[in-house]
């Protein structure tokens, strides 16, 4: 089973920041256990409530790889999620975002921003997004989460951080407005299916419950049009 990892856990295994016995086992509860259990125990009656918390989406984004330049040396380390390192001062190395942020917070590295996190590139994307009716491909499936994580923790490593923040927010707003527009035409034209190409998890997540509930209502109101589809009558008192 592939085990996803998280800053808190592995930093404990790896750097022994504490004597806490926060085992991989306990950790799984936050990823596999909780959605599985709350869904089957608490949410089974209400399919529409099956939504993720944004913090869970962010958690998934923390698995994305990012380049860092460490200022320490350490041999390769072997974790359940894969091997990392070796780390040599001044030599760039790819690590997951959770680790990059952890190292950065303790001033152990400099983060190299992803290529797309660049004012010119983002301006291009923004213009394209505004021009096109459909959703354009985004530079990263976690562009929003990564922007927030990296700018909040490593803005000193990212040139023109404020401009980037505004640009990404603009792109997000444009896309969300599009999403709403297409949801409305989806409903008004009584469509049965839709393609969600190029939408990211965070975008889908903010509207999932609402859209599913709405579609469910519309489906029920449409079934009203077919007389004879009412079986449950005798049971209702």
């Amino acid at each position, binding site marked *: 089973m592939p085990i996803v990892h998280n800053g808190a856990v592995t930093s404990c295994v790896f750097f022994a920041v504490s004597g806490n016995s926060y085992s991989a086992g306990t950790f799984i509860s936050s990823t596999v256990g909780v959605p599985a259990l709350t869904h089957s125990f608490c949410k089974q009656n209400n399919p529409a409530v099956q939504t993720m918390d944004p913090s869970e989406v962010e958690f998934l984004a923390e698995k994305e790889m990012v380049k860092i330049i460490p200022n320490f040396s350490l041999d390769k380390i072997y974790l359940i999620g894969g091997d990392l390192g070796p780390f040599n001062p001044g030599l760039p190395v790819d690590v997951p975002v959770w680790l990059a942020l952890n190292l950065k917070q303790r001033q152990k590295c400099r983060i190299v921003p992803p290529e797309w996190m660049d004012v010119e590139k983002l301006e291009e994307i923004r213009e394209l997004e505004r021009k096109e009716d459909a959703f354009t491909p985004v530079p990263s499936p976690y562009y929003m989460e990564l922007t927030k994580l990296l700018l909040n923790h490593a803005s000193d490593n990212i040139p023109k951080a404020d401009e980037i923040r505004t640009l990404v927010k603009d792109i997000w707003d444009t896309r969300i407005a599009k999403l709403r527009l297409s949801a409305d035409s989806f409903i008004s034209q009584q469509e049965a299916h839709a393609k969600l190409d190029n939408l990211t998890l965070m975008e889908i997540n903010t*509207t999932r419950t609402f859209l599913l509930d709405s579609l469910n209502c519309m489906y029920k109101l449409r*079934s009203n049009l077919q007389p004879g589809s*009412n079986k449950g009558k005798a049971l209702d008192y």
Partner: protein
Amino acid sequence: MDSQAYLPVPPGVGMEENFFSLDDILLSHERLSCRTECAFPRLGFLEKSGDTRDIAEGTKMELPLWLAKGLYERKRRVVSVEVPKVYREGWRTVFSADPTVVDLQKMGPYYYGLGSQMLHFDSPENPDVAQSLLQTFIGRFRRTMDSSQNAYNEDTSVLVERLDCLERALFRSGQSGLNGFQSWEKGRASHLTASTLVLNYRKRKMADTQP
């Protein structure tokens, strides 16, 4: 976003009710104007005037939906049910002209739910009623969506004022998605908070102890 462990049984929406749903039980308690098509011996006391032993044939009575449904039969008429005004032609024309101006809270509050339930009773108007319900929902959808997506940290009572129960539920799910995202954006998503249930209990306890 609060993780609420209590999730009530959702309403059935449409023609089928959900047996355990509190919403559906209250919906099916809505009163309908009915006319008895036969006598009901020994139940005279149920009627308003209540001074006769039996309910006579042809008596006009307000019956809850669940009872009208329970008594209703296609073959043998025991009661006939009058379609409420909102679902009749006059109002249907108003709805089709501009569904967004209608105050469904006042007309309903179970506009869609009760309308769908009315389809259990045979009537030549049923296809039109069903069509009108669907078109009204579609016509109002944009409004429901926009208000639910634009109302962060505002007083939402004005926005939901004219929505029917079903639309209110949609409004709430739209809000929870929006609030979840915005609190993440502000960096509050990983903030551990007290259970709202626990806090509400405490409020109640305080209220109880005050004289």
